[in-house]
C-alpha cells in the first residue's frame, strides 16, 4: 500500500486480502496467507495498515432479522427539498436510527433518497409524518415500499477497475 496524498494505492495483494475478508472477515491470517501463498505475518501487516488508514472501516455481523423473529419493512423515501436546506435535511435524516442510508441526488430536482426501515407500514408512516415532513425545507415526499429483495451486497473489491487484477481481466 502506497500513500498518495489523501488516498492510498493498493497493490494486488491488498485487493486479494480485502476480497477474502469481504467473503469472511473471521478467517485467520494463517488461512488467508495460505490461500494467497504469503506468510501470515505479511497478511497481518497488510490488514493492520489498512485498518489504521481507515480503508477497512469496520467489521460487523449481518443479522437475519426474520430468524430472530423481528418483522420489518424497508422503504426508499425520496424527499424533495428547498435546495438551500438540502444539506441540513440530509444531515438530520442521517441521525435517525430508522434511516439506514441517506444520499443527496440530482436529476431534474435536488432530492434526498433515504433507505428507511420500520416495524410495519403504520410505524413507517408515523416516522415520516412526525420526523421527516416537519423538517424545515421539506417540499414533498414520495415513498416506495420494498416488496421483495433480489440482491443486497456491499461494495465488492472485484468492482474496482483500477486494480491490477481487474485490468488484466477480459470483460
Amino acid at each position, binding site marked *: 500500500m502506497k500513500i498518495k496524498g489523501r488516498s492510498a494505492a493498493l497493490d494486488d495483494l491488498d485487493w486479494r486480502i480485502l476480497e477474502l475478508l469481504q467473503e469472511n472477515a473471521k478467517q485467520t491470517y494463517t488461512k488467508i496467507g495460505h490461500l494467497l501463498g504469503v506468510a501470515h505475518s505479511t497478511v497481518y501487516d497488510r490488514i493492520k495498515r489498512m485498518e489504521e488508514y481507515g480503508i477497512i472501516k469496520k467489521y460487523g455481523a449481518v443479522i437475519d432479522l426474520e430468524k430472530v423473529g423481528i418483522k420489518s419493512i424497508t*422503504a426508499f*423515501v425520496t424527499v*424533495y427539498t428547498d435546495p438551500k436546506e438540502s444539506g441540513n435535511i440530509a444531515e438530520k435524516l442521517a441521525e435517525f436510527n430508522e434511516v439506514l442510508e441517506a444520499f443527496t441526488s440530482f436529476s431534474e430536482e435536488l432530492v434526498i433518497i433515504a433507505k428507511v426501515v420500520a416495524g410495519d*407500514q403504520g410505524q*413507517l*408512516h408515523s416516522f*415520516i*409524518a*412526525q420526523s*421527516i*415532513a*416537519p423538517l*424545515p425545507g*421539506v*417540499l*414533498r*415526499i*414520495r*415513498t416506495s*415500499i420494498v416488496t421483495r429483495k433480489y440482491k443486497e451486497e456491499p461494495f465488492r473489491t472485484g468492482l474496482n477497475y483500477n486494480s491490477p487484477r481487474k485490468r488484466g481481466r477480459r470483460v
Partner: protein
Amino acid sequence: MSVSPSPSRILRNLLRNEAFYFFTSIGNYTGQHADSLREFMQKIGEIDVKSLEFHLYREDFEKWIAQTLGDARFAAEIRNLRSRKVAGNLLREQLYNVVSRRYRELRGKMSFKVIT
C-alpha cells in the same frame, strides 16, 4: 369529568411538530400542512380529495383534533362523519361543513380578538 380547553387554545397557532401534514398514502406527503384549525379548514377546500379519504379512514383527523387541539367534542363529530363512509367531493363538502361550523362556534366564544 374532563375539562375542555378554551377556544383560544383550540384556535392557537401550532408548532411545526404539532401541525397536520397531509399525505395521499403511506409515506407520500403532499407538501401541504396546517398550522392551525383555521388553516386546516382552508386546506380541506383545496387539498387532493385522496388525502382527505386517506386521513379520515386512518382516523388521523380525529386523533389530531383530540390529542393536539384537545377538542374531544369536535373529534366525536369527525368520528361520526367517518361512520357515514362518504368519499370524494361529498366527503370534502361534509368535512368542510363540520370543520367550518365548529370553527365559527369557537370564534364566537372567544372573549377577545384572535390574531389570524
